[in-house]
């Protein structure tokens, strides 16, 4: 291929018809508060694992809603379950339980 010195980035559009939302639905059954998230990012700002694995509960929730499981797994790999995100969440979401539920329900494709 000819190198033009630039390239077109792959499309990041998500086709919601094809997205696999099963994990999100299962997690929502256990922790219904997940749908209360307003994506404020307080949890990400306070997370000590953010600098190690890019952990952010906000992103995890968004990714789950879009069926992007693998990203979630990567982020979760450094969560320390410290509970700071739960303490700062303005919506009172029990993010620790959310994280544990994802860890439990996650299935490799």
């Amino acid at each position, binding site marked *: 291929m000819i190198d033009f010195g630039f390239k077109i980035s792959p499309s990041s559009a998500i086709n919601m018809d094809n997205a696999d939302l099963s994990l999100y639905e299962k997690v929502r059954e256990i922790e219904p508060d997940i749908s209360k998230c307003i994506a404020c990012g307080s949890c990400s700002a306070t997370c000590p694992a953010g600098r190690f694995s890019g952990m952010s509960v906000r992103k995890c929730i968004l990714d789950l809603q879009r069926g992007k499981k693998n990203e979630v*797994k990567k982020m979760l790999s450094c969560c320390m379950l410290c509970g700071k995100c739960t303490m700062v969440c303005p919506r009172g979401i029990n993010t620790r339980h959310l994280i544990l539920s994802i860890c439990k329900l996650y299935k490799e494709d």
Partner: protein
Amino acid sequence: MIGMIFILSYCLVALVRIIMQLPGNDRKKFFISLVTPKTMAKNIRDIFCDCLFHVKLWKRNKLLGYMHSSIAFGWFMLIVVGHIEVLLYTPHRAKLLYFPIFFRYFVAETEETMRGAFFFFLMDFFLLMVLSGIFLAMFKRIQSGVFGMRRTTNPSFLDLIGLYSLWAIFPLRLLAEGFTADISGGSFLTKSLNYVLHSFLSDHANMLPAWWAYSCALGIFLIVLPFTRYMHIPAEILLIPLRNAGIKIRNARKGLAKAEVYACPSCGLCIDACPMGVMKTHIKDTTVYLNRQIRRNNERRIEEISDKCLLCGKCTAICPVGVEGDKLRIAQRSLRKYAINQDYSGIDTDQLHVKGEKVMYFAGCMTALTPAISKAMESLLRKAGVSYSFMDRDGGICCGRPMLMAGRFDQARQMVEKNTEIIKASGADTLLLSCPICYRIFREKYRLEGIRIIHHTEYIAELIRQGRLSMDKGYTKYVFHDPCELGRGCGVYEEPREVLSYAGELVEATKNRKESICCGGSLGSLTLGFDKRKSMTENALANLTEASPDVIATACPLCRSTFVRYADRPVEDIAEIIDRNCI
């Protein structure tokens, strides 16, 4: 008779199984401790104090203590005295276990010597004692408030059978002995009952049914015993030497955990103690119900109960037989399987190293959310002229305790190792912590030889004693809230109080020290959401403000941020208070 054989063989099998379930080195430890004179003496003392006299219950409530010790001790003495009697009168038959029980029935004639009368008196005396205990027990079922208990447990069906047969045994025995008292002799109780009975039931034909009823009740009780809470009688005798041998829970269902579960008599003291108990919906999630569900192997409920608990440790602190509700739950949690297992090996500790001063301050995650505490702490250290380094000023690795509480030991261990690397590399000799959650795991799980681990309340007390901080005592009234992890977890009760008394007047909460009430914010609970915790926090606050203090003082960043949410007066950490009051 059948009951007796059944129960003895059942207990023996259970005993051997529990001991076999212990890991090898624990088993060795247990046997060694059994023959070490010191622990032997302690075992015997504990068995007498706890199983027969229920010393701990006496301390809690006199009536409750009397009820238990009268039944246990009275019964024990009835058996012992009964045996002595048999030995004295019919030594050749003493080998038969059941003989003493029905002694009065078999032996029709005994001469009324002084010795005989004395024994009869003893037997009657203890019988009376047991009867009074049983009477109190019946009364307790109706009116538990008199015994200092607001709530008591809901017995299961088999428990009820056990309960009623236990209640029936002794009145029936009295009746039976009453019938035979004129043939075989008796004392003040049985003799007089005999006269009463004779006045309207003149012959001895009623004697047989009464003895039959008595032995049936006894038989039923012994047969249902293994399936009811009364299993605690043999289990507790095993639990005491196990505990004294220093054995810890290693398996969620076997070994010590099993002994603890079966040693629980469902007394229900943990229901009132549990901070979750303020909400009716959580009553069935207290330790007594955990024990019951574990006995029934009800996995769904076990999971629910163990995930909800705050791990405040209060049930463990007050339990009269020493069931460790919090540790049992952590063990249950450790059985969970997760598809995503955190792995911190990729974390490069080099970028987290701090230059070493002698004192290293580790604020911890929770303090990072309450910067007022770390600021006050830094200011105090400066005032006292301590040179220090701040390990996690720009964030660090969690201490691992929250992960440990979730039962994920492997992940917690990895964090412990990472932090150990950082601390060892810094060359510090003192590790100063402001969070009791960190403090506890640093004391229990970290191997930091040569490094002193100290909580800031202890450190401040030391600085003041050494005169490195001088205080200006004010007139503010403080109440100290004992954080679960600092008090029950690490046994630090005195230093925070000492420090506060330098700053102002100290008042006490109604329930304090070992019985302090969890703030409700604990990381121990996995499933409790914010809305559910509110009433617990309010309950804890009401307990603290009884003596109308001006300021609520605590020594834990998590308690502080939890209380601040609902408190009607200032809530501060000890470091903030001292920083404000020192010159």
